[in-house]
Structure formats: structure tokens, C-alpha cells
């Protein structure tokens, strides 16, 4: 079985994230890392491999991003993925989800040229743009079933079953491989790379592909090809310091009730 896991390199959410002058996300001056929501995708990919003992299973970590994005693939290799692919090309900078999904789809096709790809696994959302749309776009582009936002994943033979916390119901969704799967942070804690894993990762194959390798034109991607335009970005004005009281023998409750009344909530 051939599994491709999608890993995105994102600015650290706990750092001071910023935009560039062209309104693209600053991916250079803010420390980046493997999106923590994609760690869950790596974890589930590895668990599928481990549970299906005896089968020959390859997990390939795939990222589309700048030079530094290689770190996201490295982390996935340290966690236990077998191979890495990093699509990097100056023309990709500023791509929107439509272009990103195009490049990912072409890369998945290329990975599948040797051995067919059975399963594409993504995360719940990238922690920077956070649209939660790329896996659905990939399913559309690749003509595959989508079994997305899984809180629980089970596979048996060519069948995949997931539990999904839908908007109005909890659902069990089923599909037949090949398909696109995405998982949430409910699917199970991601493992930390072990010392052995970190050492082993150094010897694992990691390929770097350009747009030319995928047969994608530079004009199809990047900021210039985006289907949306950002007109302005503004930091949210800092909240003005509020009033804080310490409760003593019921004084806190009284003060809070008075505050709610003054704001007309009661």
C-alpha cells in the first residue's frame, strides 16, 4: 500500500505572526515548523502501517513550500515516514488553495506513477490559512472519494471507515481505497520522534521537485495566478485593559452582576 501524507510548513502559531508587504503570510522572518495539525495526519498514517502488519506499506510525506519547508518533511521522517518529497519553486510563493491543491495533485500523480497511491492523508486545517479545504479540493482534482475530518479511523482491506463529528450529527462514513482522508486532533496524540527515529531519518530518501518536474507552468501558480486578492490586512487593535476584581466573601459575584447589568446583559 502506498500512503501519501500531506504536511505543511507553517509559521509558529505561538510566535508573532505577520504579513509581508504584498499581504502574503510572512514565511521567512517568523520561525516555522510542521503544522501541529498535520502531525495527527502523520500519526494516523503510521498507525495504519503498523496495524496492517505483514503488508508492504510505504508512507511518503509530501510538502509544497519554500526552502525551509523541508523541515516539515524531516519531522515526518523522524516520526517514522519512509520517504519525503518537497515541491519547491520560487514561482509557487503566494499560491492560494486552488494553486496549492493543483501542485499537490500533480505531485501525488507523480508519486503514483511508479506504484499507485492508495491513500492520501491530510490534516484538519493548516494553522496559518486554516481554510480546511485542500483535502476536498484534492479529492475533486484526483477524482477520488473524500472521507474527511475523521475523529476515528479504521481500515480493513480496501475499506476505510471513519467517525466524523458532523454539523448536526455524528456520522460514520465509509469509502473504498483509493481515497483522500483527513483527520482531526481528536484522532489520537501524535508521537514524538525518538532518538532512533531522528538518526534513521537522516538516511531516508528526500526528493526535491520543481514545477518543471510536475509539468506545471509557473503562470498557473503563485500570487499572480491567485483567484483571490487581499486588499488590506490590519492587526486587531489591542483590547483595552479590563477591570479585574478579587472575590472576597461574594464581592466578586456582586461586581460581576453589576458589570453585566451595566452592559445590559441582564
Amino acid at each position, binding site marked *: 500500500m502506498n500512503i501519501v501524507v500531506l504536511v505543511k510548513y507553517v509559521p509558529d502559531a505561538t510566535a508573532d505572526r505577520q504579513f509581508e508587504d504584498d499581504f502574503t503570510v510572512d514565511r521567512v522572518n517568523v520561525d516555522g515548523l510542521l503544522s501541529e495539525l498535520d502531525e495527527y495526519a502523520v500519526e494516523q498514517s503510521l498507525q495504519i502501517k503498523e496495524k496492517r502488519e505483514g503488508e508492504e506499506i510505504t508512507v511518503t510525506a509530501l510538502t509544497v513550500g519554500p526552502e525551509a519547508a523541508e523541515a516539515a518533511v524531516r519531522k515526518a521522517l523522524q516520526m517514522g515516514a519512509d520517504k519525503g518529497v518537497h515541491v519547491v519553486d520560487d514561482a509557487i510563493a503566494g499560491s492560494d488553495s486552488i494553486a496549492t*491543491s493543483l501542485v499537490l495533485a500533480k505531485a501525488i500523480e507523480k508519486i503514483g506513477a511508479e506504484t499507485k497511491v492508495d491513500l492520501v492523508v491530510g490534516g484538519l486545517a493548516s494553522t496559518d490559512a486554516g*481554510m*480546511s479545504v485542500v483535502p476536498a479540493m484534492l479529492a475533486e482534482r484526483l477524482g477520488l472519494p473524500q472521507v474527511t475530518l475523521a475523529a476515528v479511523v479504521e481500515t480493513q482491506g480496501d475499506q476505510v471507515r471513519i467517525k466524523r463529528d458532523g454539523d448536526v*450529527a455524528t456520522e460514520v462514513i465509509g469509502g473504498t481505497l483509493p481515497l483522500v482522508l483527513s483527520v482531526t486532533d481528536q484522532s489520537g496524540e501524535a508521537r514524538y520522534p525518538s532518538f532512533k527515529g531522528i538518526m534513521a531519518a537522516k538516511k531516508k530518501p528526500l526528493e526535491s521537485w520543481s514545477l518543471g518536474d510536475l509539468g506545471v507552468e509557473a503562470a498557473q501558480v503563485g500570487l499572480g495566478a491567485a483567484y483571490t486578492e487581499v486588499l488590506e490586512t490590519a492587526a486587531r487593535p489591542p483590547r483595552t485593559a479590563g477591570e*479585574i476584581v478579587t472575590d472576597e466573601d461574594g464581592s466578586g459575584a456582586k461586581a460581576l452582576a453589576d458589570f453585566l447589568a451595566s452592559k445590559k446583559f441582564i
Partner: protein
Amino acid sequence: MAEVLVLIDHVAGQVKKPTYELLTLAAKLGEPSAVYIGAADGAAGAAEAVKGYGAEKVYVIDDAQIKGYLVAPRAEALAQLAGSASPAAILLPSSAENKEVAARLAIKLDSGLITDAVDLDDSGVATQSVFAGNFTVKGKVTKGTPIITVKPNSAAPVEKAGAAAVTPFEVTISDAAKTAQIVASQPRKASGRPELTEAAIVVSGGRGTGGDFSAVEGLADALGAAVGASRAAVDSGWMPHTFQVGQTGKTVSPQLYVANGISGAIQHRAGMQTSKTIVAVNKDEEAPIFELVDFGVVGDLHTVLPAVTEAVKAAKG
């Protein structure tokens, strides 16, 4: 004037409030046409409901071939409707499923997509809140038919009579779109409280509740509020995941958010930072949540909340 398609958010024909917000926003861009995807017998009720909010047409798409499957058939149906109606824009209520429908629709129609808009102006410029609510971004779709998913509470619904002409629309769903099947579905139990993402007031509890949510629920009910939870409370099994507020839960933007026994981690802030008024009760005066609040009480939630609840009840009589 060109039509603007608005996907109706409903449960068994019962139209939900975000639909009216979207119709109000749609009227800025063109002539609002509501799109009902559901059981045929719920269509009349839904049409009647959207009539009061300016819907000129109501397209009715029978979901008999759609309902057993996830996402793909809905995108196909909307793509076919867009092909015949040539709308100026397509608006969908922002939910996990609708964002995926919008994603596939964007690829099908070769059109740009904006998700989670919190406002929309008459030139089609959408406002979004990004980076855990630390930035607002304004942007617009520049190619194809703008497809925009809009969050609840993004506009005040404006009542306006529309013709609401019921227009059945036949769709053909391909076999390829029926490959991800809904094997089982467990509808969520109605809590009797307002929907978390739509509520004007949200009262949340975290690890500090120690698993006893009665004080949080008591205050929520006195205020007519929805109940929310931090991930710590959800991971401990105290509340279902659908109550989680934050990066990997729901994003809420109510008039009032009351955080109880919640420290205020960045992932939690991401889901509530844009609330108009924020209140916290926490026994640790150093808790980061206090950096966000309009009003904070350093104290034990188990004694503070019941007393506030009594005061609220007394004031309401």
C-alpha cells in the same frame, strides 16, 4: 440584476438564522435566490421562511440522491445550478461540510473561494479574521464566480418581503460523487440551549470546573446562553467535542463570552477572541485569559457563578 445564490442552512426544513444573515448580505451584491437542498416535503416551509428575508426565488433541489453521501453530490448539484443560473456570487453558511462543498465547487467552476467571511460589502469585499483573531484581512475573489462561506453572526438579518418563487431544479448526480457513503448517522440531541456558533451569549467552562459543569450551565441558562468548553474539558470527557471552542473546535463571536476555569491558551483564544465583551472567572490572577477581558473576577467559579446566577435571576424577576 444578477442572482446571488444563498444555500439555506436548515434541519429537516427548519431554516436556521445564518440563512437570513446570508440573504441580507446577498442583497448587497444582487438579487438573492435561496437554494434549498433537502427532502421535498420540507421545501414549502423553508420557502415561506426565506420569503421574509428578501429571497426572490427559491430553488428546490430534492436530496433523495444526495443525502446518503458526503459533500461531493452537493457540490455537483450546486455546480449544475450555477451553470444554469449564472449567479453573481454563491454564499454558503460556514460549516465544516459547507466549506468542503465550496472547495469542490471552486474547482468545478474554476472560481475563487473565500472561507469564513465575517462581513461582506456591496463591492464583494469580504472581511476575514485570521491568525487566531489577531488580524483582520479584506479581500475579494478576482476570478470566476465568487464563492464565499460566511460565519454565523456576520450580519444583522434585515426583514424584507421577497417573491420566494419556488423553482424546482433537477440535478443529475454522477456515480463518482457517490463514493463516500454515510454508513450511520446519530443526530445530535437538542440541548434546548441556543446553538453555540449562533448564540448572543456563550458561557464556557474549562479544566477549572473539575468536571462539574453545573455552575457553568446554571449561569448559561439564567442568561439564555449557549454552553462552551475548552479542549481540556473535552479531552477529559466532561463535554462532547461539539462544545469545544477554539482552533480545533468552534469559533464564536458572541456579544458576551464568559470563560470560567479556562487559562486562555492561544488555541482557545483563536475561537473566542473576537467576542464583543469578554468576562473571565479564574482563581489564578496570573491566568493569561485576564489579558483579554473587559471584566475579570479572581475567584473560585464554584462559589462565584452560583451567586451571579442568583443575581441574574433576581434581576430578571
